[in-house]
């Protein structure tokens, strides 16, 4: 099958790849664009490890075709830090011990980033609902929720960046 040219913005930079229509966004990100932050967990849209931001919405990139990103904006965990400074969410996942093995963390961070844009001052209940598409098998979630709460406060104090 003929390959298609796919152009989109990845973490603010234009990229251009050749891929078959059947290729999934997660594979193109990892294998062609060397963005291995988004992880392949279940490949069945259950675990959320492959979560990226597509056109300002959290999606599971194992269940989106790469061609569907044509002309769009994709954000992965690699795009969260600015000039080597970690994003407050990344800082707080570290400070609050929001990770153990780290496999789910990139998906957690990118989902939490979008969630806090949608709801900058969430209750604990809202965080748990908002993060319910991401599975962690280590932490029991408590510290992930704490990390998101702390990051929300820091972001609020900094004016919601």
């Amino acid at each position, binding site marked *: *099958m003929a390959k*298609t040219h796919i152009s989109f913005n990845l973490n603010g930079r234009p990229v251009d790849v050749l891929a*078959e*229509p*059947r*290729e*999934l966004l997660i*594979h193109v990100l990892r294998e062609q664009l060397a963005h291995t932050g988004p992880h392949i967990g279940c*490949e*069945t*849209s*259950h675990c*959320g490890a492959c*979560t990226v931001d597509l056109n300002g*919405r*959290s*999606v*599971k990139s194992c*269940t*989106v*075709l790469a*061609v*569907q990103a*044509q002309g769009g904006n994709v954000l992965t965990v690699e795009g969260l830090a600015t000039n080597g400074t970690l994003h407050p969410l990344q800082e707080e996942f570290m400070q609050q011990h929001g990770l153990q093995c780290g496999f789910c963390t990139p998906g957690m961070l990118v*989902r939490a980033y979008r*969630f806090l844009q949608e709801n900058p001052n969430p209750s604990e209940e809202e965080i748990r*609902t*908002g*993060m*319910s*598409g991401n599975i962690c098998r280590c932490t029991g979630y408590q510290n992930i929720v704490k990390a998101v709460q702390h990051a929300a406060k820091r972001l609020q104090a900094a004016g919601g960046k």
Partner: protein
Amino acid sequence: MIPATFEYHAPSNLKEAIRLLGEHNSGAKILAGGHSLLPMMKLRFAAPAHLIDLNRVPELKGIREQGGMIRIGAMTTENEIIASELLRTKCPLLPEAARQIADPQVRNCGTVGGDIAHGDPGNDHPAIALATEASFVLTGPKGERTVAADGFFLGTYSTQLQADEILTEIRVPAIGKGTGWAYCKLKRKTGDFATAAAAVQLQLDGNTCKKIVIALTNVAPTALKAKDAAALLTGKTIDDKLIEQAAQKVMSICDPAEDLRGDREYKTHMAAEMTRRAIRLALERAKGK
């Protein structure tokens, strides 16, 4: 795990989508949110030669009111349904159900039209459409036709939608005064299909139940309308005894498939329990509690 090879089409308007579908006919599948179809394609349960993606057809999106009817574009996502103020006030059963579907990321992609057109008895919108007495607009090369939700679902993955038609709009009557609603869904975990679920929409006149519709998810090859149970309650003041009788009627029509969520007996009893809860909650809401 990637799908088998196919040719990808991304039409920018409905006319083009219908034309493409007619051209490739039985070899084509419509891609909506993709969270049923793409997993099936990965597993080779589906291997269409052509995939027609509706995500770039803006006319299939959006929620508006026209003549007491709420019109929902088939490509409206679950999260858009949850966020809609119009639906919250005029068709509250829809956002209530949408909040219980899958998880936030999936709700960003999953669409109401895809959920209905797929014909999966585990999907939630079929029972919601039955309970709200919705109708569906099906558009094909010869124009559009409107069919009632009641009668649309023929069997598992089988509906009245023809191979050359696209489900383009869902029409839901706005609720009247004294209306109560509830969708009670038992699921094992976030993202799972219902073990059993019940949708109820009723209207009170004083304490009398003027009208009630009860519909069930995932306890038969299609969503079910529990007509006998509803008939028992219509014109009466609903009390615990009547609710129990209705729950028994519900159990008599269940025909669930045994799977990891439970055996037939368990699912049947859970359908009854979800019905009891949904009727009680709908009554409370109708009374403004």
